[in-house]
């Protein structure tokens, strides 16, 4: 190492500051949004991706939505800002499903904006729906970190999402679906993304218990904290051999022990894979919220483009889209036609892996009202 003259940056000299919190949202609002806050009258869908919002004051704002890959470099964010400065008075918004929205006052700028975003960023305009017409677009897939940044994934996240959205691209840019369809992905069953109430969910699943490397455990792990990390009590200390013992029948493959102890990796290239769940929903519209149900217990990890996963998701989506009535989300459609018809139409196999639910959720839960829909 060559000795360098140490010159401190301002950030290294300043006193740390704590607990001042996020910026107040009011300074982040476009002036038209600020002036009409809480006073919006109605909205209208102009075309896929473009929603016209009309305020009681008569002010009009066109909100234009684009899909993003979620993982963004600061260089692309600066390009997004350039576009917002040019078209959107220096303001923009991200949605809960990783889309980006610009605010326009002049409808003649919509087409130039869409073109410029397509040319400079390659982001498609869409992700919306028109409930009045009963015509729905597919929005972006929410997902987690996968191999990009997590230590317990059973699959990648960004790669599968990219491959699936390439295949379903036209559903994003157009309103071709009969109802809302939310697709989500979590790269392990911890489900950081909490995808358990999605119309279609892809979930990374481990199928084998962690592999204990006694040597590595001795070198790198603290045994009591590793044992304590296991939620199911599957681990016992082996004080004599200074390692841990695992009860295979109790293990739920959660990877918590690996978080504490690098000596017992949970990943397994050939046995890890992806489960598919369907028929979850969260809005109260028409039909109460539902948890997603497992319909494919495992598909292999087949990077870089996971053809089995992509084709299964597409098959489910398109079977539903062809057979469902207007406003029928997957849960409502299956409720009408029955699970037996669902498996028949999609050609998915029904096996013993799809029965006998995980036993830990107590029965009392099933009586609670999981919805804000009730009478007064």
């Amino acid at each position: 190492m060559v000795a360098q003259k140490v010159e401190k940056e301002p950030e290294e000299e300043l006193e740390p500051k704590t607990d001042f919190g996020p910026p107040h949202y009011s300074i982040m609002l476009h002036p038209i949004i600020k002036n009409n806050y809480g006073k919006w009258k109605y909205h209208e869908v102009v075309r896929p991706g473009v929603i016209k919002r009309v305020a009681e004051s008569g002010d009009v704002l066109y909100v234009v939505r684009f899909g993003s890959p979620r993982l963004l470099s600061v260089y692309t964010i600066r390009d997004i800002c350039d576009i917002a400065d040019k078209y959107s008075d220096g303001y923009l918004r991200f949605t809960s499903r990783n889309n980006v929205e610009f605010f326009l006052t002049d409808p003649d700028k919509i087409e130039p904006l869409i073109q410029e975003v397509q040319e400079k960023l390659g982001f498609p305009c869409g992700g919306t729906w028109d409930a009045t017409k009963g015509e729905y677009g597919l929005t972006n897939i929410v997902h987690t970190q996968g191999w990009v940044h997590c230590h317990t994934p059973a699959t990648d996240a960004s790669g599968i999402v990219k491959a699936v959205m390439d295949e379903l691209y036209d559903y994003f840019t157009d309103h071709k679906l009969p109802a809302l369809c939310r697709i989500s992905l979590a790269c392990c069953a911890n489900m950081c993304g909490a995808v358990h109430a999605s119309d279609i969910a892809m979930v990374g699943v481990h199928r084998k218990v962690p592999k204990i490397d006694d040597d590595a455990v001795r070198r790198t792990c603290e045994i009591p904290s590793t044992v304590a990390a296991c939620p199911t009590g599957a681990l016992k200390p082996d004080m004599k051999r200074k390692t841990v013992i695992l009860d295979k029948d109790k293990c739920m493959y959660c990877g918590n022990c690996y978080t504490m102890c690098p000596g017992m990796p949970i990943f397994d290239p050939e046995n890890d894979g992806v489960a598919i769940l369907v028929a979850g929903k969260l809005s109260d519209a028409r039909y109460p919220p539902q948890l997603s149900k497992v319909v494919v217990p495992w598909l292999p990890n087949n990077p870089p483009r996971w053809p089995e996963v992509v084709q299964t998701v597409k098959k489910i989506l398109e079977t539903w889209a062809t057979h469902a009535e207007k406003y029928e989300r997957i849960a409502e459609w299956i409720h009408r036609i029955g699970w037996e018809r669902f498996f028949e139409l999609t050609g998915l196999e029904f096996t013993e892996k799809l029965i006998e639910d995980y036993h830990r959720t107590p029965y009392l839960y099933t009586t609670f009202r999981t919805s804000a829909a009730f009478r007064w």
Partner: protein
Amino acid sequence: MPVVDGVELPETPLLDELEKGPWPSFVKEIKRAAVESEKAMKAGKKIKLPGAAKGLLKVLELSYKDKRTHWKHGGIVAVYGYGGGVIGRYCDLEDKIPEVWHFHTMRINMPAGWFYSTKALRAICDAWEKWGSGLTNLHGSTGDIILLGTRTEHLQPMANALAYLDKLYGSPAPFDIGGSGSDLRTPSACMGPALCEFACYDTLEACYQFTIRYQDELHRPMWPYKFKIKCSGCPNDCVASKARSDFAIIGTWKDEIQIDQEAVKEYAKAGVDIEKQVVKKCPTGAISWDGNELKIDNKNCIRCMHCINVLPKALKPGKERGATILIGGKAPFVDGAIIGWVAVPFIPADELIDKCCEILEAIWDWWDENGKFRERVGELIWRVGMSEFLKVIGQKADVRMVYAPRNNPFIFWRELQD
């Protein structure tokens, strides 16, 4: 080795497959950060973590080849005064790809509703280009701005850059760190009154108030496990609060749906099939339409939003607005996935924030005292019973909390025992 704009990139034949196709590519983003940060450095910009994005390309290509992750956990990392907000991340290839041996995540508390001025976003970009990988997630699943990858020694300078983002980088305001670990996670909100006419309370203000009042709970993990608050302005639940938060605040109303009969007729004239699209789809059969007047039996309406969604110009939530609180929503770990259930059927909008704070504080005290390690509040309620929980939050049992009464008469009459 492929060379782009004079910058050498590693061979990534598998990842290159994910640059193809019409959907925007995250691989292009990583490559762009690799190329542009090196160019910026050559042009004299200060970049403390050169080669980080290139390193990530190498690690990720290996993961694609090996079909496994190359990240590991290990060691607590933090910034001054905080116990959460930074997630320690190390590469298991250690010295083979030194650029990303440390690759910690920083979670930054976003503005409520994810609204930004470009000045604020550019300032974050400038700071992160200097002190980190230049890669982000907009946004993480909880809602934070995710800054993806930096070294331990750059965490504090980056936190300071954010804390003085106004003075050093021209942002309209500084940014603070978000939650992680066993603490209050960064609360989030739908765009609510900022843009949506369905909002039954001010989701952004509620979210901001919870965040500001509970900075200590957000920054210093001290609970059995995590706790999430999400604010949706109506039962459409655009931030998925029912599934993704322990404490879901869902806007609703108590009185009658407001109807503009002229606007209904205009919709009908414009081709909306009111009978088929609205009347038949109402889950309680509460709507009737004779071609001239739309009638709603509000006693039967369950406020599901369907009719309002289809006819936004003609129908509006009632005027007596407020919110329903659902408790206990969570992902599968440990006791299975659940959707939250009703804890408080209705709180009027003007009392909402203070009342929620009162309830939240009671819940946290109780959970902190009674919860086991890694037991979410919903799981604690299962263990000790909903009636215990109702005492804690000062609520009486209400038929709106259940789909149906219990099946079995084995009721424990504890209060009668000597």
